[in-house]
């Protein structure tokens, strides 16, 4: 039995740092002291377990999951799909993937969003699903619109979908944002640019996937998600064992 062990160290130079002054809200919300490094204990290796009973299949279909009977959301119909893998390339099965987004006009269904673009009465804006045995997930939704935000005088977020993923241990917990291939707002965005490495930014851009479209129905984008890999216990005579 190959017992999975601790997670690989997170590459903090690949992720955005806490303090990123062009994204103004980070200035007062970034710790000044260094993080204290912890080797994983049982508290980090374990994490919540979800099952198919926790979600409804309709939860993954944002075109219909908040629509009135006979209605559907307005916008560019897309399938967003991909695999959740770890850094070793192994699929992460049975893990909860949650997402949320604005509607086709860039308006969020949230009592704090006052943007003048209208709410779509048939669009809620959130979805969730559990990956299958091979780590696959898929959602059906409408492509979100860009929207303005108060950072600089004239700041616009690129079209994006927020993604939340659990993995098999609490140390794998991740929230990120999925962008869309070819969007000219991506390189202008101070939130995108909190990430220092251009190759890391590319990892957040979903690719147009013509092979997965449904002709005359729905276009498709592919977005794979990579979670931290884990050491295998190659030797039993470790200096410190759990």
């Amino acid at each position: 039995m190959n017992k999975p062990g601790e997670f690989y160290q997170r590459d903090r130079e690949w992720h955005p740092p806490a303090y990123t002054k062009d994204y103004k809200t980070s200035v007062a919300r970034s710790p000044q002291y260094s993080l204290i490094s912890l080797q994983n204990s049982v508290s980090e290796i374990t994490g919540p377990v979800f099952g198919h009973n926790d979600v409804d299949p309709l939860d993954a279909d944002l075109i219909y999951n908040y629509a009135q009977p006979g209605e559907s959301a307005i916008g560019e119909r897309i399938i967003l799909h991909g695999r959740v893998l770890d850094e070793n390339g192994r699929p992460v099965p049975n893990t909860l993937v949650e997402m949320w987004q604005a509607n086709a006009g860039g308006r969020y269904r949230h009592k704090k969003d006052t943007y003048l673009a209208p709410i779509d009465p048939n669009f809620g804006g959130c979805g969730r699903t559990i990956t299958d045995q091979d780590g696959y997930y898929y959602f059906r939704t409408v492509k979100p619109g860009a929207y303005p935000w108060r950072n600089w005088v004239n700041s616009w977020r690129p079209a994006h979908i927020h993604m939340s993923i659990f993995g098999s241990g609490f140390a794998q917990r991740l929230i990120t944002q999925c962008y869309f291939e070819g969007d000219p707002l991506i390189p202008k965005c101070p939130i995108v640019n909190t990430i220092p490495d251009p190759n890391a930014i590319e990892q957040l851009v979903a690719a147009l996937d013509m092979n997965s479209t449904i002709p005359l129905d729905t276009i498709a984008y592919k977005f794979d998600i990579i979670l931290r890999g884990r050491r295998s216990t190659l030797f039993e005579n470790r200096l410190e064992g759990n």
Partner: protein
Amino acid sequence: MPQELNYLKETPSQTAGPYVHIGLAPGAAGFDIYTRELGWDITGPNAKGERIRIEGVVIDGTGSPIKDVLLEAWQANADGVYAHPEDEGDVEDGFRGWGRVITDFETGEWAFDTVKPGRTRARSVGQQAPHINLWVVARGINVGLNTRIYFEDEVEANAEDPVLNVIEWERRRATLLAKRSERDGQIIYRFDIKLQGEDETVFFDV
């Protein structure tokens, strides 16, 4: 050139943004969509142990409470067992050990009801003191912040906790101790989180 290692890179984090509630707590965003929102019940109805409530605020570097935070808790049951196949032992039926809460839009206060966790095995030898693992995301936080809630009345266990003892500065350890009180017969632990500045909460790279 040596062989390539061919590890994949972890997907980089991005902020959860101000509308995190839409995805993770849509009822709070102002609409009911799911038949069951996840994360409201950490322990289930059958949990053994001392019933407690943990509450606090998250304070930014200007001293102001943040009103758009989402926090997730991950804890063992009263026997010190996590509801996960990689831990040894069983938990009560319905005990998940995970929950999520958001801060009040007006006051920034958050709270969750749970049971006090038991001691869990340490990475090498001995045991960890009772603690709840906490993950904090919000607008302006680029990568979710990991911290731990310990309990001020667990003096002996805290003194031998391997994680608290990794923190070189005793004054900083105190930022992880929740303060116990009683209100209307209920046991309350207060745990305020300071993101930045004086008495900044200890955050971990796990």
